[in-house]
């Protein structure tokens, strides 16, 4: 009977609490995995957070951890912790579709570095989560296999592109999940689903085994129930990797600060018209509460970071994506059009039929920006504006320790509301994309509700200041 009570409360357990439960043998890793599998089986058909899970493989991993425990071996805090993986991160031996028909039957031949690191600690892969095709989208509606809905309101989107990962954590179908963030894809769905989402500093986490979208922007990061869990997972996945030459060693200074000597900047340009007044109220209220705790609030200016950041992003991201996606040629892996008569047709038809509409739109946009005669006017100009965006942040950080903004200008929107208008979809990422352009770390933490739906606050820090932004995040979490 004791065990049953435990499971009833499992949905609220953090990584550390589960770790204690395993050590005290309140439950085994297998029992824990079975609990999550049952939850997935009952809730996933409606929610569609997972694209794939394999019971046998899950139980096998959990059994291994139970053996370690019964042998009396010391286990890591992540041992036996069931987690979900966005389906653009490779897990050996199981499908990796990137939410695209072009990779529908692709089986990952190796583990991404982040997966290798987590498996080494004994964390248990539950399955692969839904995403906008090739991580291109802000609502999950562009998944080729169907939309992952928002657990708070099934008529609304879970956000994107890591909507499946955020919904899985929010609906308690995983203890934590991995996502990827190119222009807000971890933070925006975390905000929509009321969970914590960390986008680490560019280069802090290896991207070996992540299906590339825009290489100067992409980062892998955790989506969790609590800030403490995000810190634990980040600690395991970070670090330099010889297989990813853009990865860097994280040099964190030991932090000694309290709220009373912290200076937080509020960018005046970010509370713009277009932001939902109820969302604005919740975020401003949260900022007021932190001010009452002694944090000094200072208005800062990021003049290039609203309109120009999004326009810059929509040149740089598709340009890099169009070249990264050139590898889907119908020859090496993935879908190949069976009726092709010659090599040209293999390329033209495999890509036309394998890629969905949004992916093709971005490939077209990127190819346009990079094409002869337009390169200087678009791509090169965007890279120059990117320098100005970086400088905006550098100047702001001379005066403040962290910058606070809403994560998204609205709460989760209704399914279908924006899918027909690509530009209105892009605008939902107005506060998050600048951070990727500047390579900074940022975390979205739930800070209240508007229209009965979660609202997230975004905390942006200087490069490699993940600890500091998470510390600040812990405060908002307690509100």
């Amino acid at each position, binding site marked *: 009977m004791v065990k049953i009570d435990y499971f009833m409360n499992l949905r609220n357990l953090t990584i550390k609490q589960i770790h204690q439960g395993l050590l005290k043998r309140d439950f085994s890793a297998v029992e824990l995995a079975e609990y999550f599998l049952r939850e997935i089986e009952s809730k996933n058909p409606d929610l569609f957070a997972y694209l794939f899970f394999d019971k046998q493989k899950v139980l096998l991993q959990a059994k291994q951890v139970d053996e370690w425990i019964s042998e009396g071996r010391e286990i890591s805090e992540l041992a036996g912790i069931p987690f979900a993986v966005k389906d653009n991160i490779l897990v050996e031996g199981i499908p990796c579709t990137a939410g695209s028909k072009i990779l529908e039957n692709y089986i990952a031949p190796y583990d991404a570095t982040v997966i290798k690191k987590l498996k080494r600690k004994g964390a248990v892969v539950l399955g692969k989560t839904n995403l906008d095709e090739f991580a291109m989208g802000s609502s999950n509606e562009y998944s080729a296999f169907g939309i992952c809905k928002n657990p708070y309101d099934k008529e609304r989107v879970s956000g994107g592109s890591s909507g499946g990962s955020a919904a899985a954590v929010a609906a308690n179908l995983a203890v934590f999940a991995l996502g990827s963030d190119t222009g807000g894809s971890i933070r925006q769905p975390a905000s929509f689903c009321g969970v914590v989402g960390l986008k680490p500093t560019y280069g802090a986490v290896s991207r070996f085994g992540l299906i590339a979208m825009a290489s100067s922007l992409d980062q892998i990061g955790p989506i969790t129930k609590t800030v403490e869990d995000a810190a634990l997972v980040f600690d395991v996945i970070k670090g330099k990797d010889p297989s990813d030459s853009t990865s860097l060693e994280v040099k964190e200074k030991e932090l000694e600060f309290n709220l009373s000597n912290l200076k937080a900047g509020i960018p005046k340009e970010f509370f713009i018209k277009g932001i939902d007044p109820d969302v604005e109220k919740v975020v401003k209220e949260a900022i007021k509460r932190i001010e009452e705790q002694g944090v000094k609030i200072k208005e800062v200016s990021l003049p290039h970071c609203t309109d120009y950041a999004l326009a810059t992003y*929509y040149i740089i991201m598709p340009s890099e994506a169009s070249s990264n996606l050139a590898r889907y040629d119908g*020859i090496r892996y993935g879908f190949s059009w069976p009726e092709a008569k010659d*090599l040209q047709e293999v390329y033209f038809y495999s890509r036309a039929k394998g890629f969905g509409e949004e992916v093709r739109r971005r490939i077209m946009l990127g190819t346009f920006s990079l094409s002869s005669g337009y390169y200087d006017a678009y791509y090169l100009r965007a890279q120059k504006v990117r*320098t100005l965006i970086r400088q905006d942040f550098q100047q702001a950080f001379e005066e403040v320790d962290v910058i606070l903004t809403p994560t998204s200008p609205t709460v989760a929107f209704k399914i279908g509301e924006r899918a027909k208008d690509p530009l209105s979809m892009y605008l939902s990422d107005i506060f998050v994309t600048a951070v990727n352009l500047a390579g900074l770390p940022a975390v979205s933490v739930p800070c209240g509700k508007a229209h009965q739906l979660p609202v997230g606050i975004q905390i942006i820090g200087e490069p490699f200041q993940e600890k500091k932004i998470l510390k600040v995040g812990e405060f908002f979490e307690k509100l």
Partner: protein
Amino acid sequence: MITKEEVKHIAKLARLHMDSEEEEKFTKELSVIIDYIEKLKEVDVSAIPPTSHPFEVENIVREDTEEKSKPELVAKLIQAAPAREKAYIKVKPILKWSK
């Protein structure tokens, strides 16, 4: 703005087959997005260097040595190809025989 002719040309460069209905649709949609990104023309960037990497990092180099992959991995990678023969990936002919 982008013209239908330009869309056709870009689709060809991107190796995407497109029927004329799609060409129309993409012309409309891409025009809206391109008009939006035109905003950047307002910014004076004459003295600004471009950013291709968010941080100033030095080149990362390594010894140019051979690293062998496990034969099982090689086999799996070949297996992923849609058309194969023995340990090779099969492609359509790229040369034509002239008689």
